[in-house]
């Protein structure tokens, strides 16, 4: 049974979103820069390499513990550029605002975007604002696009993982998704968890200073660590093995996931990265990540193996083995 309408699943970042990209987007725009389907495009202009990326934010609620839609929109694009190996430089901001939205809320959002841009060291250089009638959009949606310069010696991509690589995760998982979820109507959790929304470009600079053997960088946002690793395994045609015991999850997050039947491996993060590094440099990179203010809980969660190309396997806490696949349906809509 096929569908003739867009379903929420199409925005999940998982398999069904992927098929939308492949079936509708790629044929229309087909070009070698897009078809890599990385977080952003890599462009060669005048002998220099640039990373160019765009993202749209619809998170509900607009304000949540640990951040708001504006901060998220700045850091999200900054991080996408950083994951391409680029140093983010300039951003654009597009706003779609619903009639009746409080100006004081808009000010709060824009102010925090300014502060976020400063923290990440980027400049917002162009923008656009549209207002739509009440009900035609929900409160506020934000698009950001940005460009960054990729240093000459940097060459990272989701298809570049090789057997032996160690996989570094920069901290606890599922904080953002679970925080936003607990703020929704109908949820009566009181918890101290907050979103991990953060810029990762400084951390990436530290990683490149520590090692020239970084192969993959990825921020596991929608679809979580599980979906990101599956994509990397597939694109690199390599096997990945990770260890449940080594993946840091806050106790509170773990409990809420269990209560609601969510797997933290598939819950969104907004301030974490995965780095695939040659084994000889793994410890150096791990130290570099831990030096960053957003990487204190970093650890090595697994490695790339020569067996089972294209697939991710997880050793469970009790020593069993299971497969980790891409997210297949929408677990939580409007999380970013």
């Amino acid at each position, binding site marked *: *049974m*096929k*569908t003739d*309408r*867009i*379903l*929420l*699943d199409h925005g999940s970042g998982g*398999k*069904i979103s992927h*098929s939308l990209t492949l079936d509708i987007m790629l044929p229309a725009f087909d070009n070698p820069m897009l078809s890599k389907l990385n977080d952003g495009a890599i462009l060669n202009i005048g002998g220099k390499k640039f990373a160019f990326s765009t993202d749209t934010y619809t998170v509900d609620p607009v304000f949540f513990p640990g951040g708001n839609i504006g901060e998220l929109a700045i850091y999200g694009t900054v991080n996408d550029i950083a994951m391409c190996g680029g140093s983010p430089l300039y951003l654009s901001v597009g706003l779609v605002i619903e009639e009746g939205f409080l100006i004081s809320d808009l000010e709060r959002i824009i102010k925090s975007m300014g502060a976020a841009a400063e923290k990440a060291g980027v400049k917002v250089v162009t923008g656009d604002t549209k207002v739509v009638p009440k009900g035609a959009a929900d409160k506020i949606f934000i698009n950001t696009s940005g460009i960054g310069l990729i240093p000459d010696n940097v060459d990272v991509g989701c298809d570049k993982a090789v057997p032996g690589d160690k996989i570094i995760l920069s901290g606890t998982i599922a904080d953002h998704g679970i925080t936003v979820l607990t703020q929704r109507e*109908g*949820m009566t959790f009181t918890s101290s968890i907050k979103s991990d929304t953060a810029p990762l470009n400084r951390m990436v600079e530290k990683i490149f200073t520590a090692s020239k053997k970084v192969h993959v960088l990825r921020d596991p946002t929608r679809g979580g660590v599980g979906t990101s690793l599956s994509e990397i395994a597939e694109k690199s045609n390599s096997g990945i093995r990770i260890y449940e015991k080594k993946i840091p999850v806050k106790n509170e997050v773990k409990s809420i996931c*269990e209560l*609601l*039947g969510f*797997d933290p491996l598939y819950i969104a993060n907004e301030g974490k990265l995965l780095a695939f590094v040659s084994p000889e440099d793994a410890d150096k990179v791990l130290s570099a990540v831990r030096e960053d203010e957003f990487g204190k809980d970093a650890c090595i969660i697994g490695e790339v193996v020569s067996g*089972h190309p294209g*697939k991710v*396997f*997880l*050793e*469970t*806490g*009790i*020593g*069993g*083995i*299971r*497969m980790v*696949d891409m997210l*297949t*349906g929408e677990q939580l809509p409007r999380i970013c």
Partner: protein
Amino acid sequence: MTIKHADEYRDPEISRKLVEQIKNLSKKNVRLMEVCGTHTMSIFRNGIRKLIPGTISLLSGPGCPVCVTAQNEIDAFIEISRVPDTIITTFGDLMRVPGNESSLQKERAAGKDIRMVYSTFDAIEIARKNPQKKVVFLGVGFETTAPTVAASILSAREMKIENYFVYSAHKTVPQALCALMKTEGIKIDGFILPGHVSVIIGTRAYLPFFNQYQTPCVVAGFEPSDIMQAVLMLVKQIENKTPGLENAYTRAVSFEGNEKAVGIMNDVFEAADVAWRGIGIIPGSGLKIRNEFSDYDAMKKFEISEKDSKEPRGCACGEILTGLKTPVECPLYKKICTPVDPVGPCMVSSEGTCAAYYKYHSED
């Protein structure tokens, strides 16, 4: 030692010792069925199948509520969602289950008001805030959720909310076990009985079943060592030829169960003969709303047409639910039936056997 947190039930050392004991004891080839979908997921998520010896096959049973919901019930839900001025409230898993020509998810995309709720009380709240609309809660589940649905009807009456209705497609577990044993071709040497359901109904609810069939039964919790403990107890019973009805989840399950919850459930519902997907009509295995509460019964409030609903062709959900087949033996599995475009409910529900296989199982 007081065990305060579930982590201790995930201790690899305890699991390793249990696996060792199972290996030492297990001689015969046995087929054990975990009845409950939450057990199925825990078994897969923890990789338990790869830890236990090859003599033991774990089969998944009919304990995923969405999976056993009959096709004509799914079609009835979709029909109600199309009635003007109606709000459908449901737990998330039902959204994707394909009916004969649509699903709730597709109806929502087409503009019908269908809302996911986390509790029946959210549904009542929606009814209270929308007095001009008819708010229908789709009651799908076992004895675990049926008492809270019953309580919501009692609350609605107390609060004088007249626009709240329940479609009760609830089912009860002990009757299904009897039906399974009567199904032709089925060979089950022991049952891992559900934990949550047993918290409500107590181990005593399984006595009639056990007395009739003398099949080894152990009630289990959901942590890996709970499940392995149950497997060990079942293997012991089978190897020693001493079938029993045992409880490996004493920290939560008693002989009597939760009498208050059962009381509320029985006040509002009465047993009915209902159809289970893939199994057919099982006498006394459903919970229909008593006449006294018919004002809240969606089946009576809405005129639902007689349906000749057919289960999708080629779909082996029925055989999978009864342990006759595994998902990999279904001709549609992974070919045309995937979680993105599911054919049968076992691929939809987060507790479905096919979804568990798809997500966690690799033929490698």
